[in-house]
C-alpha cells in the first residue's frame, strides 16, 4: 500500500500537472512546485478527498512543503 508521502506526491503531481519524480520531500509547494495561490486551496481539498479527512482550514493552508503536509495529514489519519 502506498505511503502517505507517495500519495501526497501523486495528488500534488496530478493537480499541479507536474512529473511526480520532480517532487521531493523538501519541495515547497509555491516556490519549488509552482503552486499558485488558488491551487493551495485545491491541494487542501484534494488531500481531504484522497485521505477522507477534513483538515483544519487555516492550519492546512499554512503548510508550506511536502514533508510538513505528510506530517500534518498523518495526524488526521492517526486520529
Amino acid at each position, binding site marked *: 500500500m502506498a505511503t502517505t508521502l507517495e500519495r501526497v506526491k501523486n495528488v500534488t503531481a496530478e493537480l499541479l500537472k507536474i512529473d511526480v519524480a520532480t517532487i521531493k520531500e523538501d519541495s515547497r509547494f509555491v516556490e519549488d512546485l509552482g503552486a499558485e495561490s*488558488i491551487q493551495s486551496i*485545491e491541494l487542501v481539498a484534494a488531500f481531504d478527498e484522497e485521505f477522507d479527512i477534513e483538515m483544519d482550514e487555516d492550519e492546512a493552508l499554512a503548510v508550506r512543503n511536502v514533508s510538513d503536509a505528510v506530517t500534518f495529514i498523518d495526524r488526521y489519519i492517526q486520529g
Partner: protein
Amino acid sequence: MSEKKYFPLSKENISALIVNGCHAQNWSKVSVPRDFDPARIRNCTFAGAVEIGKQSGDIVLIDGRRKVCGIYNSTLENVTVGENCFLSNVSVGLTNLIIESGVVIENAGEIACFGESTFGNGHAVTALNEGGGRELKICEKTSAQLAYLTIFYRDNKQLIDRLNYIADEFCAQIKNNRATIGCDTQIKNCQKIINVRIGKNAILDGVLSLKNGTIDSSVEAATFVGSGVIAENFIFQKGASVDEGALISSSLIGEACKVGKQASIENSVLFANSEAFHSELCSVFGGPYTVTHHRSTLLIAGYFSFFNAGSATNQSNHMYKLGPVHQGILERGCKTGSSSYLLWPARVGAFSVVLGKHYTSFDTTNFPFSYLSDEAGKSYIIPAMNYFTTGTFRDGFKWPVRDKRINKNKLDQINFEILSPYTAQKIINGREILMDLYESSEKGQPFVVLKGIHIKRLLLKSCARYYQLILDKYFGDLIIKRAERRNISSLTGLFTDAKNGANAADEFWVDICGMLCRKSRIDEFSSAVAAGKIQSLEQINAEIQKIYMAYEDDEWDWFLASYNKMYKCELFEEQSENILTFMEQWQKSSLKLLNMVTGDAKKEFEGPVKTGFGIDGNQEADFENVRGIFEENSFKIQLEKERELVNSQFENIAKLIAQG
C-alpha cells in the same frame, strides 16, 4: 413686502461711472443701493437690467490674494450682483445671472444663461444600458438609492412613471432664465460657462467649458471644478472634485467623488466617494466607492459599487447584432484584475475578484467572496475564497474611514458591512448549491457547470465548509454587536425585544446601491411612491433614510429568525449552555478566519514576491529595507489586535451568558 434694495443711478453716479470708463445701453436700467460707491466700478459695460449690490471693503481669494471689492473690466447684461463681490476681467461677459454676495470672478471668458434652463436637472442619462430603456433623469438631489430604483425597477411601471414625474416637478421649480452663482463662490481663469447653476462656496479654476449643468456646493462641502474640464449636461453634487482635463457628458458626479487625469465619463452616474482617473466610463451606474484609476480601463454598461478596477479592465456590451444592448452587474465589493475582460451580460456575486477573460454569460450572485478565473477559454469559480484574503479584510476597515462626505444631509445612504443579511442569504444559498452539486457529482469528474461557470468538483465540499465558517463568524458577531451597542449585561437583556419572527428569515434582502435592507421595505416605499403618497425628491430621500435607519433592528430580527430556521429553536429559548457553545464556535471560526487572512498577508513577505529584489546584491536585505518584515507590518499587527479583541469579546459574552 420686501424692502426695496436697488434704486436708479443718480446723475452724479452716472457721471462718475462714465469717468471710470463705464458704458451702458440704458443707464436707467442700472440700479444700485443708496450708499453706492461708483469708485468700485471701472471699465464696465452694462446692458439690459443690471442691479449692483453695495461693494465695500476687501475680499480674500482662495490663493490668499486680497482684492478690493468691485466690478472691473467686465460686461454685464441682465445681471444682479450681490454685496462685496470681486468681478474682474470677464471679457465676453456676464449675461443673465444672479451673482450672490462674496462671489469672485476673475479673468473669465463668458458666463451666461441663454433661454430657460433646468441646469442639467432632468437630463436623461442612459446609465447601465447604453441602448436605452433605463434612463435616469439626473437631478441635484438624486441619491444612489433613487437612481437604483429608477434604473433597475423597470418591472414596476407605476413607480417609474411617478419617479419621473417627481423629477419633472423638481425641474419645473428649478427652471429659470437666469443662472445663479452662489455666495462666496470663486471662479478664476475659466473660459466658458453657459447655463450652469453654481452653489455656495464652489471653486472653479481653469475650466474650459461647462454647459447645462449644476454644481451643487455648500459651505462645509465645497465643490471644485478645475483645469481643462469640459462638461455638458451634468450634475456635480456637494464636495465633488472634477479636475485635470476631465471630459464629462450627460453624467452625475456624486458627493465627494473625485474625477481627474483626463477621465472620460459619458452617460454615467457615480455616487458617493467614487473616483475616476484616466479611465473611460460609458453608461456606467457606479454606486458608492466605484474606483477606477488606470488609463487603459474601460467601464461600460455595468453596475458597480465598492468596486476597484484593475488596469485595462474591459467589458463588451455589443455583439454587433442589435446594438449596445447588453448590461452587466458586479455586486458590491468586486475587484477586477489587470487586463480582465467580461462579456456582458454577466452577474458577479458580491466581494468577488475577477481575473482573466470571460466569454460566457454567467451568474454567480449566490457565490459571494469568490475568485473567478479563466482556463483554456472557460470561466472557473472558487467560492468563498476571497473572504480569507487580505484585500477584503482591509476593505472592511478602509471604506468607512475613507468616507469623505462632510456635508450635512448626505444624499446616499451607505451600509459598509461586508457581512450582512444580504451577503449571508447568498452564502446560505451558495452553501446549499455547493453541497447539492457535491452529492450529485461523480468522483473523478473534474468540474461541474452551473449557470455558465465551471466549479472544480474537488472544491465543492471545501467551499461549502468555508461558507459555513463565515456564517458562524457572522452570527456570533451579531450577538456581540447587539450586546456591546446596547450595553447589555445579561442574556435576558439581549432578547428583551426579540420577536418570534420565523418569516423574517425568508425575507429577501437587497443592496439598493449601497443601502442594505429588507426587500419588503422597498416594496412598501415603492407602493407609497406609486400611490402618490411621496411627492418630492426631498420626501423620497427622507423615506429612504428611514429605511436605512431600520437596518440594525431588521438585521437582528433576520438573525433571530434565521437561527430559528437553521437550528429549529428560538435563540432566546435556548439553554444558556447551548448559546455558550454557539459563541465558542464563533470564537473558533473568527480566530480561524484571522489565521487564514494572516496566512494570506504573510505570502506578501515570502517566496516569489521577493523576485527582483537585491538586483545586484543581497535579496533579503534589499527586501527587508524596502518592504520591512512581516512581524512588524501594520496590517499584521492589526490582525493581532483583532485576535485579542475576539478573545476579550468572547470572555465578556461568556460572562453575560453566565449571568442568565
